[in-house]
């Protein structure tokens, strides 16, 4: 780059000033020495491992979808300057998944050659946790990667974290399997009538079907299909639909239903095993019409509990609208262990890892996020002014 003539003159003056500054200050005895000239071009980095107090805020930017981003936030801090650790863009309501083992964050993105028009190209972008720079990308052919309200069920690490499954929806449904070592697609698995990718056995995944079943797929070492089996139908997507969003702990998952039940699912074997549903709402409170609702409606902690965003007076149409409380469950006891009334209203929730879990909630009224103690339920603080538009999904950092 070359400055125009005038700029060069001004810069020369500045440098001259610096050269004479030492002399000038020597003449002014009472003054401290001048500030040193500072280096230009320094870029910060992040720690290899993200602390427990960090969260990823996925701001899908509902009003500017091609300019969505993830904000890496330290909720232990008290000022915006200390809270924001960095950001990276995710274009056109993508999905993200973090692998702390690999120190990478995966994001599905879509670009057009002219912003919102022109040729469409889909990618899996691989972000380095430490530098928040892209270290690789995988082109996703077919213009079919799942693109909808962000969630945790469109991406899945499998085969001990070596592979990544990407859910497709065109609206024909399938999953693309990527080898994370070579950063190449190794196979595509059709999942007719069934959508999303849930952990199954060591090297497999399940999808959730319109007719109320799971389709479980196990894969061979080369990524091709070993076996595909369907469970019996356990719900009706017309009459008692479940949410596609489960709490997942290891090879167990809990799928809440729109009418307030929860289905435990054992994903340890080659075929999903659906257990018996139990009611999320204690019997004495059922007249109040409580049910889950929102976008990121559920998350789990390292203490073996899961959290569900709940609203009263549920009715047809309220299932995506969020809730006024977060209820915490012990799935072993099949019972609620804590009730956290929110400051105002919640749209999505996430829980931090570790022995002292914190709950982060998107408040859709202010689009700020609020932090609560996962054990006492106490409200701790509100984080806002982070440059967010619509932080639709939250993730505890891994």
């Amino acid at each position, binding site marked *: 780059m070359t400055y125009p003539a005038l700029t060069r003159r001004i810069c020369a003056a500045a440098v001259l000033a610096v050269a004479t500054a030492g002399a000038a200050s020597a003449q002014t005895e009472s003054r401290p020495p001048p500030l040193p000239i500072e280096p230009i071009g320094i870029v910060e980095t992040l720690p290899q491992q993200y602390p427990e107090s960090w969260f990823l805020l996925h701001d899908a930017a509902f009003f500017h979808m091609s300019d969505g981003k993830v904000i890496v936030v330290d909720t232990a801090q008290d000022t915006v300057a200390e809270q924001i650790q960095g950001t990276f863009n995710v274009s056109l309501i993508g999905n993200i998944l973090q692998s702390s083992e690999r120190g990478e964050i995966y994001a599905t993105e879509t670009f057009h050659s002219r912003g919102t028009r022109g040729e469409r190209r889909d990618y899996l972008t691989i972000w380095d946790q430490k530098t928040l720079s892209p270290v690789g990308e995988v082109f996703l052919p077919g213009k079919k990667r799942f693109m909808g309200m962000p969630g945790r069920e469109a991406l899945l690490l499998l085969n001990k974290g070596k592979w990544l499954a990407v859910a497709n929806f065109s609206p024909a449904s399938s999953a693309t399997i990527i080898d994370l070592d070579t950063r190449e697609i190794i196979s595509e698995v059709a999942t007719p009538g069934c959508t999303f990718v849930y952990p199954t056995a060591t090297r497999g995944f399940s999808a959730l079907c319109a007719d109320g079943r799971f389709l479980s797929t196990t894969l061979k070492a080369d990524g091709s299909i070993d076996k595909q089996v369907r469970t019996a139908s356990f719900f009706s997507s017309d009459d008692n639909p479940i949410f596609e969003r489960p709490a997942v702990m290891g090879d167990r998952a809990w799928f809440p239903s729109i009418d307030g039940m929860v289905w435990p699912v054992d994903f340890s074997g080659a075929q999903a095993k659906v257990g018996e549903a139990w009611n999320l709402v204690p019997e004495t409170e059922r007249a109040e019409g409580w049910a889950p609702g929102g976008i990121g409606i559920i998350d789990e902690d390292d203490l073996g509990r899961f959290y569900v965003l709940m609203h009263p007076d549920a009715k*047809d149409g309220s299932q995506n609208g*969020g809730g006024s409380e977060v209820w915490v469950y012990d799935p072993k006891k099949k019972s609620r262990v804590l009730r956290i009334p929110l400051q105002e209203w919640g749209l999505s929730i996430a829980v931090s890892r570790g022995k002292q879990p914190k709950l982060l909630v998107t408040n859709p009224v202010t689009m700020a996020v609020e932090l609560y103690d996962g054990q006492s339920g106490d409200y701790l603080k509100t984080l806002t002014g982070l440059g967010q538009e619509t932080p639709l999904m939250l993730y505890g950092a891994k």
Partner: protein
Amino acid sequence: MKFLDRWIEQGSRDLAQRSSRRGLLKGLGGFLVGTASIPLLPVARASAAQGAGQPQEEGDPSSCDYWRYCAIDGFLCSCCGGSANTCPPGTEMSPVTWIGTCLNPADGRNYVISYNDCCGKSSCGACLCQRDEGDRPPYRPDKTNDINWCLGTTSAAYHCSTAIVVGVALEES
């Protein structure tokens, strides 16, 4: 700067945070559901005024309460340079979409409504409307509004949603 100090002291901070984000509250927070408490306005549809011998509907197609929007979730094309059943200039209508079944109060019939998205420009941003009646998660593609239906269009950029009458639903009575 003093106004900021006072403003914060007043305790009005929370109030002040709400703002035009109120629109988001309605849409993304899901509080807004069509209610009978809002009066229905006459629709600008020639046939509506012509009595029982002509097809009838009523309401304001730019209001979230409009009968056709019972299962919608998105920006109303009526507010974006289009109408309840046409796309704004320079956009492209998605050929595939989700459907809802909505009751037309003017004739007491349930209609099958196709919510075709208009694509190729970024979010319209006006008249966000989320009603979600009969909405199902994406594993039920025909009934889900949670995905971007700009599929089969040249661009995947979502702009707004229409609500097109594609048939009368099976009558209950």
